[in-house]
């Protein structure tokens, strides 16, 4: 697993830059990660990211887009506006969680 330094934080990431250690993340770091993919974090963005973080703790895996919408209560359409093009992937990236398991 490569180690990289972002904003003075040393973090473990996979080949695509997704963080692999849950506790290395902080909201500050999340903001920096978001900026790297062109996202300026608003309260609505944070609502989604906080849901991802807490759901991951409960379920042990990165939630799917449907789960963020059904359980997290943010409509899919809105997620596509907040995290354009690839919301599932982008949210996981910002939330410091493993890349969502494509399906099987």
């Amino acid at each position, binding site marked *: 697993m490569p180690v990289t330094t972002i904003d003075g934080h040393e973090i473990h990431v996979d*080949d695509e830059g997704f963080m692999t250690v849950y506790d290395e993340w902080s909201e500050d770091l999340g903001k920096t990660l978001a900026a790297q993919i062109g996202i300026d974090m608003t309260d609505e963005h944070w609502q989604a990211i906080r849901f991802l973080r807490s759901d991951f703790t409960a379920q042990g895996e990165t939630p*799917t887009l449907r*789960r963020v919408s059904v359980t997290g209560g943010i409509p899919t359409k809105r997620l596509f506006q907040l995290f354009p093009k690839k919301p599932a992937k982008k949210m996981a990236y910002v939330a410091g969680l493993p890349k969502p398991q*494509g*399906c099987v």
Partner: protein
Amino acid sequence: MRNLLILGAGTAGTMIANKLRRRLDRDDWQITIVDQDDRHHYQPGYLFLPFGTYTEKQVVRSRHTFLPDGVDFVVAEVDRIDPEASSVALTDGRSLAYDYLVIATGTTPRPDQTPGMLGPEWRKSIFDFYTLEGSKALAEALKDFDHGRLVVHVTEMPIKCPVAPLEFAFLAESYLRERGIRDRVELTYVTPLPGAFTKPAASEHLGSMLDERKISLESDFMVESIDNEKKALVSYDEREVPFDLLVTVPLNMGADFVARSGMGDELNYVPVDKHTLQSKKYANVFAVGDAGDIPASKAGSVAHFAVEIFVDNFLELIGGRPMTGSFDGHANCFIESGDGKGLLIDFNYDTEPLPGKFPLPKVGPLDLLKESRANHVGKLAFRHIYWNVLLPGRPVPLPTHMSMAGKVTTSTNQEK
């Protein structure tokens, strides 16, 4: 007398009833299986109906003929499970108590979940092939289709038999060529995935097979609605894919009674341990086959391998011993590629589909992740194995756990 109650007399439920009836003492154990009708569908056959390869009679039989003596078959709809009371309420007012419950009610296509799918164009220019009715209606539509845009579409993952829509695209391409009208048809494959399939090596291989056949790929497409007037798929990020004939795989969901019972996730799948299939919440409840949330393909082969593990584990559990079997997510799927050929893929939770030989190293006779006639013949032969060997719970000479023997690994396609 103890009660084993199985909900669903499909692939997993029927196999479990057969295997456990042989191994549970009839004086101690009653086995009851519930399904809403008496028609067992060989679902892989739906793929071939639109092209006239199979007839309805070859893919539907009575459920009860596959159930052994000593198993009560109840034809009824499930209203809800009360897991605290260990009982199941049926919609006709009856109630069935259980000591152990197996939920094997699979997953069902739900066209009602996408706005516009069940609109005026449904079964006119919009078809599914995941139901017998849909597949039969599509057969008629294909006969009349002689030019225009044919779009094959997957709504959202997971779907049962995840390779089936690709197979449909390959078979349609071959069928149009045989009819001499391939050059009058624009073929597009639309998927929510970033590529043709889910796992890297297979996705690359299957993606290049789409290229070779001049089937264009529209990836990362999350459908929001279907515009019936324009006849177009519309995505959340506002892309449109117009069609003259749309063959869609609707959203797949577990049974609604699972949701009503408060036992499902956001798609009504029952959360279970991925190695034992035991409910994460109730120790006397299992979900086997497509009904559970394990991260494996929703497919008959997965149900078959999982049943083998479940049955031995169940006997340990009721004997008061720890369950020692561990399911590895093993899947083994033939992929029709048209022109009388097919591929075979063999994989599990940890290992993606790889090239090589199956089941014996070097000898095969089947090729993995490579087109061959033998794989097509294997796929067709499987229907007989399904009815005569698999469902009755007779031993199938395939390893339950995936084996690396015969698989070719390179550093680039090792699963991370």
